[in-house]
């Protein structure tokens, strides 16, 4: 493959790299601190656009055969994940004045792109690390809070464990096959000797940890709660997406068989049930959404039970619907004096009377996350359970649906607070408006743009879901 093709195939990655270089330069120059965000937005948007265009043209190629390859469906997914980062960047203006947030996010995105295209465990490992390490730092960015350091450390240690487990599994796979292709994992799924089985379990363990599947989920609520809102949004949407896409990548065309099948079915089932149950009692929105994301990781792993041909499509569409609505919730969350009170669910009481638009958006996000039609969350959930059912796992599908029913209550509780509870302290909103009005207004405008982008995208995929499904 000539250099021209190498350049084209990795265009999204190159654009991200370009953005990264620009951001570092800006940081060194130390001028125009506000420009960082716009540069980041521009380069992520261009990267997403280039991936989308390449996908649309049906481009496929392997610039580094055996390590890195792209195909139209993969590029579409890449474009989607990159595009989902745009609202995150938009809403970050409120919390982060300088460029480090954007720099870290773009480095992490580079890892996401590598993961999505990796053919060998080397690239996959590189991608996963490039993806994770900036996120540990991102959690630390909200250093004003004491809980933040603790959560970041917890996240780092468990992330390290996941890495270790992944490497151990991969080395066993290499030992068994002498091969670093991700396809060795696919083959190992069907093998029944101890070495391969141990390898598969170790690799799965790593991904369960990273995706926060019960009982490996304990880091998630802490990390989500301690990080600032855009970081939580990034972790719950983009990082989760990358992990699940990596899993789909290594599962390849493998059909699951017992006893692996039980692991891949039962732990996600537990995640759904426990995530949904534990979310009911959370006092803070981020902690609640952390448990909700644990449940959603469960649904996403359920997609692996389905027919191999439809896995990528199902997972990608689910990630799109879940990501959009999750981002909508974070972007619409109204600002408050400090982060602590912004997060408290109690403070959402009577929100409809203070900020009707924000309340409606949050309500829509909650209902969609709960999987109530006609919102996109329903079609995505339907798709997963349809595939599980059609693969013949009727009992798992029914149990999964019942587990998802458990989640309805806590989403409704948020709506109940916003619409049906009286305004607890009328007049808190006035105080903030005067002090830093121009800055506030501008960053609110960015957040509002993020909200509107998510809203229109969500409306689009709820009315024309097929138009997006066909792309993956």
């Amino acid at each position: 493959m000539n250099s021209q093709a190498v350049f084209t195939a990795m265009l999204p990655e190159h654009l991200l790299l370009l953005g990264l270089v620009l951001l570092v330069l800006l940081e060194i120059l130390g001028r125009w601190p506000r420009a960082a965000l716009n540069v980041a937005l521009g380069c992520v948007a261009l990267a997403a656009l280039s991936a989308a265009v390449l996908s649309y043209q049906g481009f496929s190629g392997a610039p580094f055969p055996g390590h890195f390859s792209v195909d139209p469906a993969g590029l579409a997914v890449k474009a989607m994940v990159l595009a989902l980062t745009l609202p995150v960047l938009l809403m970050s203006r409120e919390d982060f004045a300088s460029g480090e947030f954007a720099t870290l996010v773009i480095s992490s995105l580079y890892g996401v792109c590598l993961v999505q295209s990796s053919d060998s465990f080397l690239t996959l490992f590189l991608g996963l690390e490039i993806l994770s390490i900036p996120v540990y730092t991102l959690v630390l960015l909200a250093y004003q809070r004491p809980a933040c350091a603790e959560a970041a450390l917890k996240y780092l240690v468990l992330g390290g464990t996941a890495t270790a487990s992944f490497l151990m599994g991969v080395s066993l796979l290499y030992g068994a096959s002498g091969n670093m292709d991700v396809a060795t994992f696919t083959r190992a799924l069907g093998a029944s000797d101890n070495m391969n089985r141990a390898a598969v379990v170790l690799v799965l363990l790593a991904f369960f940890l990273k995706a926060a599947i019960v009982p490996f989920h304990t880091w998630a609520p802490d990390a989500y709660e301690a990080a600032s809102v855009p970081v939580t949004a990034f972790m719950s949407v983009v990082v989760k997406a990358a992990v699940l896409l990596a899993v789909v990548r290594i599962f390849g065309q493998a059909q699951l068989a017992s006893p692996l099948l039980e692991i891949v079915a039962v732990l996600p089932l537990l995640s759904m049930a426990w995530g949904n149950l534990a979310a009911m009692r959370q006092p803070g929105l981020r902690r609640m959404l952390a448990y909700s994301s644990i449940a959603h990781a469960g649904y996403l792993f359920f997609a692996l039970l389905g027919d191999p041909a439809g896995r990528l499509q199902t997972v990608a569409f689910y990630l799109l619907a879940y990501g959009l609505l999750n981002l909508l919730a974070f972007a619409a969350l109204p600002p408050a004096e400090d982060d602590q009170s912004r997060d408290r669910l109690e403070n959402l009481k009577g929100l409809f009377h203070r900020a009707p638009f924000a309340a409606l958006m949050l309500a829509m996000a909650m209902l969609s996350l709960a999987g109530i039609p006609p919102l996109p969350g329903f079609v995505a959930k339907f798709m997963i359970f349809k595939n599980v059912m059609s693969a013949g796992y009727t009992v798992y599908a029914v149990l999964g649906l019942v587990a998802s029913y458990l989640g309805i209550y806590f989403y409704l509780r948020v709506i109940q607070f916003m619409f049906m509870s009286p305004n607890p302290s009328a007049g808190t909103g006035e105080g903030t408006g005067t002090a830093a009005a121009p800055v506030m207004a501008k960053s609110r405008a960015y957040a509002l743009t993020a909200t509107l982008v998510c809203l229109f995208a969500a409306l689009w995929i709820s009315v024309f879901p097929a138009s997006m499904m066909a792309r993956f």
Partner: protein
Amino acid sequence: MFEIALLNLVLWLPVLGIGLLLILPANVAALVRRVTLGVMLAQLLAATWLYLQFDAGAAGLQFETRLAWIADWGVHYHVALDGYNILLVLLTAFLGPLVTASAFNAITKDVKLFYAMVLLIQFAMMGTFLAQDLFLFYVFWETMLIPMFLMIGIWGGENRIYATLKFFLYTAFGSILMLAALIYLVWAQYEGSGQLSFAFADLLQTRLPLTAQGWLLAAFALSFAIKVPMVPLHTWLPDAHVQAPTAGSVILAGVLLKMGTYGFMKLGFPLFPDATALFTPVLLALSVLSIVYGACLALVQDDIKKIIAYSSISHLGYVMLGLLSLQLTGIQGAVVQMVSHGLVAAGLFLMVGMIYERCHSRELAAYGGLAKLLPVYSVFFLILTLASVGLPTTSGFTGEFLALLGGFQYGWARHLAGDNLPLVLASVAVTGVVLGALYMLRFALGFLFGAAKAPHAGEHGLADLDGREKSILVLIVLAVFALGLFPAEPLRKTELAAKHYQQLVGTSRLPGGTP
């Protein structure tokens, strides 16, 4: 072509209305009300035109629209009129303007959101009736929950949060199992025919073994029976009705409950004929239990909204009885009873709402002698009470009589075959008529006659019905009498559907039969 466009207009007008409300400023409540009323009236007009154009002699779907929605799954945007839904569509469109008008004075908080929710629920209900594709049906079916949840939760009574959560969680549980069943059903259909389709017409040809049919019927029936509601799944209804604002109660009683019986008629029984045959005794017993138990509970209530709520449970038991009888008279009776209950219960809830606006009490004992205080109100109230009891010439009589007759025909046929249970059950169901007279007359007696008293009457004096309220009630009473005196005309339009239903449920569809 014009009718097809009109049918889509009937469905989408409320959404258009929501769009209009969005651009209106929030503080012009009067304009919001007028816009909503206008949209609803336009919808009624269009629906009436469609009703008149509906060809009673043609079987199957009319004014059909079928567009690919999610092509890979065989999901279509597929809406049409047929004998099953024609009357219910008309009923929904008829109640829309009345509901809107009834809330003009009662709702003063968040008026814009309220009317947006009324329009949204109107859209979802219309869609549920019109959908001819199971996926679309489910989407509309679930969409209904959202506006109702907000309506009870925001504008409801003192215990509204509890009531609305109970309503939502109860119905959502039924729906989630129905979702599992419908995926299974569609998949079984796909394996049989090789064609992935959610169209009712295709699914109605699925052949399934008896055990699968039994489980699927159980899941569908659970969802529908919660909506009807059938004893013992009725406990959400009194709470929801009592706490809901008047408009919410009217929508609940008028249309929402019919979703359950419509679901049974259109899907539940026809999809699984063999399981239905197997479970008919159980379902019949539950229907009769609903009739009698609902009536008994209505007899001892002190809350006037609860009396009507429990009477709904009783009245919808007749619908189930008629549907299960599989006799043409019974099925037609069930259809009339659905519409009749929609009119009468909606009317009664409206009247309760009107008195509540004046006196702020729902306690039966607090009232008395309203015939002296509010003569016009009392006349309307008495008419609706008698319609609820099933006095001949009112719609209540036609529905109950035909449904019971169907029950007896079925019972007699089974009796000749050596099975006495249906006959016994049909006889027990008749006591529901007596009990119905008892609780409604107790209600009317205490309410309208005796020593004149009404809470808060002394302070500003009780005003009798104003023009708006009178027009609402006149329309309902006219409809009640029209359906009672001339049932033949609407029944002509539903007859082919009733026969179709009878034939579908009556024919075994186990696998291995001749296709």
